[in-house]
């Protein structure tokens, strides 16, 4: 171990005993590690990680609010440039699909109950990664790749494709053919549905809508944005890795996050 700066960690685990146990075990195995935040839900994990910028994040996969995977996705999108991206360790009691994806990847994961030897191996791995972390951009790139494969590994339930969006305003229900939608944008608990002429609000989380859309035609470009591919006019990449999209039928410019920037490459 040659890292001079103290290593700071965030623990996100909703079960208080498990959080305390993990913290105690980590303290014994890695005294130099400073736990700067211990949170019990996904939203706090995201906020605290962005505010404190720890080097290591231990994220439970199933938490109230955002899941561990969603926290990682949001971190990858919102992480400030120039700051090394944290090393992520996922913790899960039983999550087959995630484990399958991890098996092929380098991000570490822990299965609860976490025994000491396994945690020690994880600590060693983290220390090694921190020591030869010369290139922060590389870490982010590696994490982005892992996240992409993880998000893609979510087994899509067999849901029938949606043909028409039913948007209600007062006692009027407007029917919008999915094909006319330029893009969807998450807004709190609602979803904005934008066509060339109009905007509608529906009460459906993006997470629920996404499996009902044809992934060939509708591309997720940000955790909160899904665009119909044929409505995208151009994509311009800036130096931070973000991509700005102009649309054919709408004046707005949309932002594609780093996680989805790979969708826009010349043929």
């Amino acid at each position, binding site marked *: 171990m040659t890292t001079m700066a103290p290593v700071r960690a965030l623990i996100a685990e909703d079960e*208080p005993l*498990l959080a305390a146990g993990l913290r105690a075990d980590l303290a014994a195995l890695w005294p130099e590690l400073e736990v700067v935040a211990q949170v019990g839900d996904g939203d706090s994990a995201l906020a605290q990680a962005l505010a404190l910028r720890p080097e290591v994040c231990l994220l439970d996969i199933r938490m*109230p609010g955002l899941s561990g995977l969603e926290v990682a996705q949001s971190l990858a999108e919102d992480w400030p440039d120039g700051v090394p991206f944290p090393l992520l360790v996922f913790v899960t009691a039983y*999550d087959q699909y995630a484990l399958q994806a991890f098996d092929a990847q380098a991000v570490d994961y822990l299965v609860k109950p976490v025994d000491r030897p396994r945690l020690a191996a994880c600590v060693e791995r983290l220390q090694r990664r921190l020591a030869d972390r010369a290139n922060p951009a590389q870490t982010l790139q590696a994490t982005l790749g892992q996240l992409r494969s993880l998000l893609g590994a979510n087994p899509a339930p067999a849901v029938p494709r949606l043909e028409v969006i039913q948007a209600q305003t007062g006692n009027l229900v407007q029917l919008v053919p999915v094909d006319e939608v330029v893009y969807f944008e998450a807004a709190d608990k609602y979803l904005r549905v934008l066509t060339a002429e109009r905007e509608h609000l529906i009460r459906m989380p993006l997470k629920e809508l996404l499996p009902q859309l044809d992934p060939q035609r509708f591309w997720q470009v940000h955790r909160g944005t899904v665009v119909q591919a044929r409505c995208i006019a151009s994509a311009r990449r800036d130096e931070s890795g973000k991509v700005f999209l102009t649309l054919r039928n709408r004046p707005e410019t949309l932002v594609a996050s780093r996680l989805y920037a790979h969708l826009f490459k010349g043929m």
Partner: protein
Amino acid sequence: MRTRRRFSRTVAFMIVLCVAIAALLTAWEGEGIRPHLAYSFSIGICCWSLTEGMRLVAAGATDGWRRWRGQPLSPAGFDSGWRGIVPALLVAVVLGPPLGMTVGDRLTGLRSPSLLHLEAAQTRVTVAMTVVASIASVFVLSTMERLSSARAQAEGAQRQAAESQLRLLQSQLEPHMLFNTLANLRVLIGLDPPRAQAMLDHLIAYLRSTLAASRAASHPLAAEFERIADYLALMGVRMGPRLVVALTLPDELKALPVPPLLLQPLVENSIQHGLEPKVDGGCIEVSASRHADRLLLTVRDSGIGLGGTGPRPGGGFGLAQVRERLATVYGARATLSVAPAEGGGTLVSIELPLA
């Protein structure tokens, strides 16, 4: 698979029967066996084709009729009961022998007497033999078939019961719940051994009741509440201050019999889909009360409510299973309703007849 087995069995039976008849006739008339074989096979094949043909036509007509009426098609393909057999048998017995004998004449170059010529002893023997053989063969074959279809049905029912049992067990021994509980136990052993022991006792009671639930037809309401208390105690350790529990069971209702683990899936739903995903957690109230001759059981939580996330993979099974068990035990006399609770969350109510 079944059709092929049926086919090869029928062919084997036909061959044995035709050879037997030919042998019998040879013994009776003392001539060479070859013409008899030709005749018996011709008649046998004709009878068989007619029977099967008739039945296929009947099956097609039945399916067409059902489709037209919008009823489900029969899974067996065609009717293997007597209604399907009798007309087919009549046609085969009347048309089979003359047709078969004509074919036999062609094959052997002989000329058999007309079957309408009943004075000839030869004709009488042939007709009697054919009629008896046809009736016997159709009877034997249809009995064999009915037996095998009954066996297949019984196997299907058994498999379905086993599958439903397995799914019930899987839903209750959910790995996420089990491993998280064990992880908590592991930490508690180091921190607070007496509390760890108490938690282990709850886990043992929970596992025992889950594994035994399928065996008993009913248990007292007090036992049901104890199992719920075990589960909620485990969840209390896991969720800490995020979970508040209130169980209400009046003394006079404690001995009432209820199907085992009737409320358990509802309580688990409230925790898994209502309170666990909620950042601040909340409370769960389970209560029993009596209204005239009805028993009212309610599970109310202050969780994220019905409009929250959709059902998890494997979700929805708990509720369906409770409904199914109520219907099996009480028929239409029990009701189950799921509604948004006042002030947020979900309220599930079960009403049972007391008598």
